[in-house]
């Protein structure tokens, strides 16, 4: 739906033929193309009329608005997505995972959840995975109690906060406590909309509107646009998986394919309120990750349920145009020692995972050298000149494996048997052994290899 440079140029001064160069570019056409690509701001054109400028600004705005939740180091940006399917380009801002705390929960449960949010960090392929937000729910009926919980959270964490409160006065009191933290206010409906607008005018917050169905959201967001409030999240109020897939799909399509501004905001999802038990809740959350939610609230987190969800989020939000790569180094498998075999492969994460899991299955302790090869598999890396004798040799010298083992025998992938001679020349003190052509042969191959050395 994005407006094209060729459309913009016609609306520039003198129909795009002024070519004054004052913007720093040689022609109006060049300016228009750069504007369409987001490489320059409209104010650089000194002669554009305010009306056209406003129109273009509106049309050039991202179809799904980026929304920043929270402030400072813990702030989270969501939205600004441009595709329905990750293969069309990529999903850019992974959804925030939130943990729900209700103000009627016992103190130790509250403490426990805050501690888990702070401490549950996982390391995965060189990245740190963690949950990102705290959602505070008013349930006690006592605004003072809710206020106390909000105050506690404000000092305990620097991550963004979401205030979930059906009582407008209690919500706005809590909001006032969060000055400078830009929390999410939820639920905002036709009933409390005007009060929320005046509060947010004084004290910035993200407005999470709740409707009954997709269409009802547009009335609320149109009013917010009138009030110049653009930090908005949408909750269509989906009741189950089927309606959630429908609502999320319709919102994303309306924004991207119809250019329907009133739905051009990120969405928020509440598996914590939808599911009957923890497994169903996690499965709903896992549905919301590929299906467009920008903020997903869970009733609780623990080590073993959070990790799979965070890995899924990382997988789905990985840029499909860039292969996932492993860090170049020597990976020990099955507790190897100085006599264990040394194998080498490329650094495409899939290649590594497959080889590593087969070596593991062989139960033979081994050193797996993973060489930087642009995230390519063995054959493609070889074809691209990134996995050959003249670059493997220096890697073997510097990666440290020579200090880890007391032998000089290196197993190379069978698929690149042809590099054996060049590698032998480059590493004259090493014996180069051609291993299996397929990783699934490793569990049979490795024990036999080790046995042959001993015999």
């Amino acid at each position, binding site marked *: 739906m994005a407006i094209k440079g060729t459309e913009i140029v016609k609306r520039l001064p003198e129909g795009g033929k002024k070519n004054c160069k004052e913007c720093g570019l040689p022609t109006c056409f060049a300016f228009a193309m750069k504007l369409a690509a987001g490489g320059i701001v409209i104010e650089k054109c000194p002669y554009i009329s305010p009306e056209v400028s406003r129109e273009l600004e509106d049309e050039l705005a991202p179809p799904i608005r980026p929304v920043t939740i929270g402030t400072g180091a813990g702030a989270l940006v969501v939205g600004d997505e441009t595709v329905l399917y990750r293969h069309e380009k990529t999903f850019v801002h992974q959804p925030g995972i939130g943990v729900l705390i209700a103000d009627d929960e016992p103190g130790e449960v509250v403490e426990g959840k805050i501690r888990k949010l702070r401490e549950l960090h996982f390391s995965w392929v060189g990245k740190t995975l963690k949950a990102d937000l705290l959602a505070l729910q008013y349930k006690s009926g006592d605004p003072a109690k809710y206020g106390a919980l909000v105050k506690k959270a404000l000092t305990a964490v620097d991550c963004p906060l979401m205030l979930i409160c059906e009582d407008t006065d209690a919500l706005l009191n809590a909001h006032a406590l969060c000055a400078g933290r830009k929390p999410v206010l939820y639920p905002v409906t036709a009933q409390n909309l005007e009060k929320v607008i005046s509060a947010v005018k004084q004290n910035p917050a993200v407005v999470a509107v709740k409707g009954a169905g997709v269409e009802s959201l547009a009335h609320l967001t149109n009013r917010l646009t009138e009030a110049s409030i653009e930090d908005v999240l949408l909750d269509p109020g989906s009741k189950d*998986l*089927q309606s959630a897939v429908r609502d999320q799909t319709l919102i994303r399509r309306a924004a991207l394919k*119809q250019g*329907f501004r009133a739905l051009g905001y990120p969405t928020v999802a509440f598996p914590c309120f939808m*599911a009957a038990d923890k*497994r169903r809740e*996690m499965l709903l959350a896992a*549905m919301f990750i590929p299906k467009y939610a920008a903020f997903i609230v869970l009733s609780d987190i623990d080590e073993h349920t959070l990790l799979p969800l965070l890995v*899924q989020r990382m997988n789905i939000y990985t840029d499909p145009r860039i292969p996932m790569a492993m860090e170049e180094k020597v990976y020990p498998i099955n507790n190897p020692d100085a006599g264990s075999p040394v194998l080498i492969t490329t650094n495409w994460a899939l290649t590594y995972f497959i080889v590593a899991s087969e070596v593991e299955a062989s139960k033979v302790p081994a050193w797996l050298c993973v060489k930087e090869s642009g995230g390519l598999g063995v054959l493609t890396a070889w074809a691209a000149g990134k996995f050959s004798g003249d670059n493997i040799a220096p890697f073997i010298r510097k990666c440290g494996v020579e200090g880890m083992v007391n032998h000089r025998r290196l197993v190379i992938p069978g698929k690149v048997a042809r590099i054996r001679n060049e590698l032998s020349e480059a590493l004259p003190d090493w014996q180069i052994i051609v291993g299996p052509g397929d990783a699934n042969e490793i569990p049979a191959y490795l024990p036999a290899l080790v046995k042959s050395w001993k015999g």
Partner: protein
Amino acid sequence: MQYKAPLETYTGRVKEVTIGSGRKAVRVGGQNILPLHYFEGAAANRCVVALEVDDNGAAGWAGHVAGPYKDVVHDPLKWAKRCMEMGADLVCLHLEGTDPQGANKPAAEAAALVKEVTGGLDVPLVVYGCGDDKKDIEVLTAVAEACKGENLLIGPAVKENYEAIARAVAENGHCIIAQTPIDINLEKELNVKLLKQLPPERIVIDPLSSALGYGMEYSFTIMERSRQVGVVYGDMAMQMPIIADLGRECWKTNQARADAEQGMLWESITAISLLLAGADILVLRHPDNCRLLKEAIEGKL
């Protein structure tokens, strides 16, 4: 600007494949909507869930996933019946024991076993060979002949052996699994070749399923693209139903083996991801996940 629901309808339709014969036949595919888009049209058949059985006594299965079957793992027929009782729409028998690098059981023995299992079951059977492309010709041909007319779903047929397996499948009235290594071009190429030997209503695509964290996103995107090409763009060579044989991949991971609850989620999250991408048959190991995914398929979760 007035809101008008952006509903879409498509001319392409997934081919309807029938697995099993007589009263135990199960149909998959047939829909002209994207996965779980029940708001845009009725699905002729909803996705189905199979539970996995092997001929190797569940060797290598972590205790927490083998648990529900632990008294029957050495009797594939009893094991398959257990799966059926636990709600599986289909049973998926992996002939691990025929692997030349493992127990190397002869083809005739495998064929006799498949015949026994399918004869004793009220749900259709999916049969996977061990994945050794030469041995699979021998084993799957024997299976196809021994179970003539049972309309099994048999595979994997890969580019090295598809001709022989497709011949055995065509001559004996079964369906075939066309397997390619996470590559949409190779997938289409194999489909085109198989279409010379079999009608599209007898082919199911297996683009390979990787586990969460181990390349799941590649399987996800290949399945999503396959379904788009078939349904949205109407490419006849890409309209076959998709099988996601994911249970074994998930339970192989350290993360699933290390902790029972984590393992459950490793399998169910991989499954729902691939379901949303376009899988029509999910092959799982844990019966609780079978029930859960059936709820998800109904949209009732």
